[in-house]
């Protein structure tokens, strides 16, 4: 029994920072090697813990951005100006540094190819991170599941993973952007907040019973989930994840 209890324990471990990649002005991706990493499902999180010299500790939960790949994981971090943890992660960490984390955690907001489709992903801002893990997993598995991403950003420069999403689109993956504050010249995509008409355009229809994942700031998540229910989607098939300032 004692051994069984230990297996279920969630233990802190030290990850090695392999690389720090700039995604845009406020967002960076940390590539980490976690020696004891047991593998993860896309949509799961890790808890990151920072300890100050005086012993003060701050913990935050971050979605894993990468598909499962051995002991390597990637976290994409948006730097919040008054955050306790994110400024350190995005501005101070360098390759070769260590970072304390535990995980993976969470089983509610997860997708794996065996779950099938169709799949509707709706993301706002850095809420795209766990959705990107699902898109990457689909690509890595060679899956042809019908997957559609509706991604709301303030401007084209704020779009995270922009080039990679462009490369992966096609072969059953649809990527639709909406830019809510400013749009580049000649923009012919959506230019407003996610609404019923947009969700109907992007689909899949509620009758196709898609698995739906919505991740972003609380107002976006609440509005999108309510609209999807109005459009006839089953509440149990709509998984939501809210990003709040305490994610900082």
């Amino acid at each position, binding site marked *: 029994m004692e051994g*069984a*209890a230990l*297996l*279920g*324990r*969630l233990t802190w471990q030290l990850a090695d920072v392999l690389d720090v990649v700039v995604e845009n002005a406020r967002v960076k991706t940390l590539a980490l090697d976690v020696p004891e990493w*047991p593998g993860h499902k896309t949509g799961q*999180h*890790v*808890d990151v813990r920072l300890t100050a010299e005086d012993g003060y500790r701050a*913990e935050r*939960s971050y979605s894993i951005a990468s598909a499962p790949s051995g002991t390597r994981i990637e976290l994409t971090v948006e730097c919040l100006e008054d955050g306790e943890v994110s400024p350190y992660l995005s501005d101070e960490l360098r390759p070769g540094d260590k970072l304390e984390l*535990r*995980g993976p*955690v*969470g*089983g*509610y*907001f997860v997708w794996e190819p065996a779950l099938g489709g169709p799949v509707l992903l709706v993301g706002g801002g850095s809420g795209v991170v766990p959705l990107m893990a699902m898109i990457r997993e689909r690509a890595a598995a060679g899956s042809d599941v019908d997957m559609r991403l509706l991604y709301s950003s303030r401007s084209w420069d704020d779009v995270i993973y922009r080039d990679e999403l462009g490369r992966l689109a096609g072969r059953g993956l649809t990527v639709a952007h909406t830019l809510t504050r400013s749009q580049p010249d000649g923009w012919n995509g959506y230019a407003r907040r996610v609404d019923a008409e947009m969700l109907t355009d992007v689909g899949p229809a509620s009758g196709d019973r898609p698995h739906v994942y919505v991740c972003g*700031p*609380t*107002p976006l998540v*609440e509005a999108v989930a309510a609209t999807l229910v109005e459009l006839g989607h089953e509440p149990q098939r709509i*998984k*939501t*994840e*809210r*990003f*709040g*300032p*305490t*994610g900082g």
Partner: protein
Amino acid sequence: MDALTLDGNAVAGLLHEVFGTEMTVATGTCGSCGASGQIGAVHVFRSAGVVLRCSWCGNVLAKIVRQEMQACVDLSGLSGLAYVHHTGA
């Protein structure tokens, strides 16, 4: 809706620590309105501790305060909590 609201996903690690297993897929039943749902979907507020509230009626389902060596857990707002205790890897 308060923009500070998170959901059960954000405290998956803390819940795992307290219960010894993955809890966001556990099913909780609200002791006030009787709604049942997965813990990943309940509303979470963080201050000195963590407060889980029913996403339907707002009833406080659980309060968790963790200090260095102990955790104080109040589950009096739940009439039920069903979960699988995974003992293997």
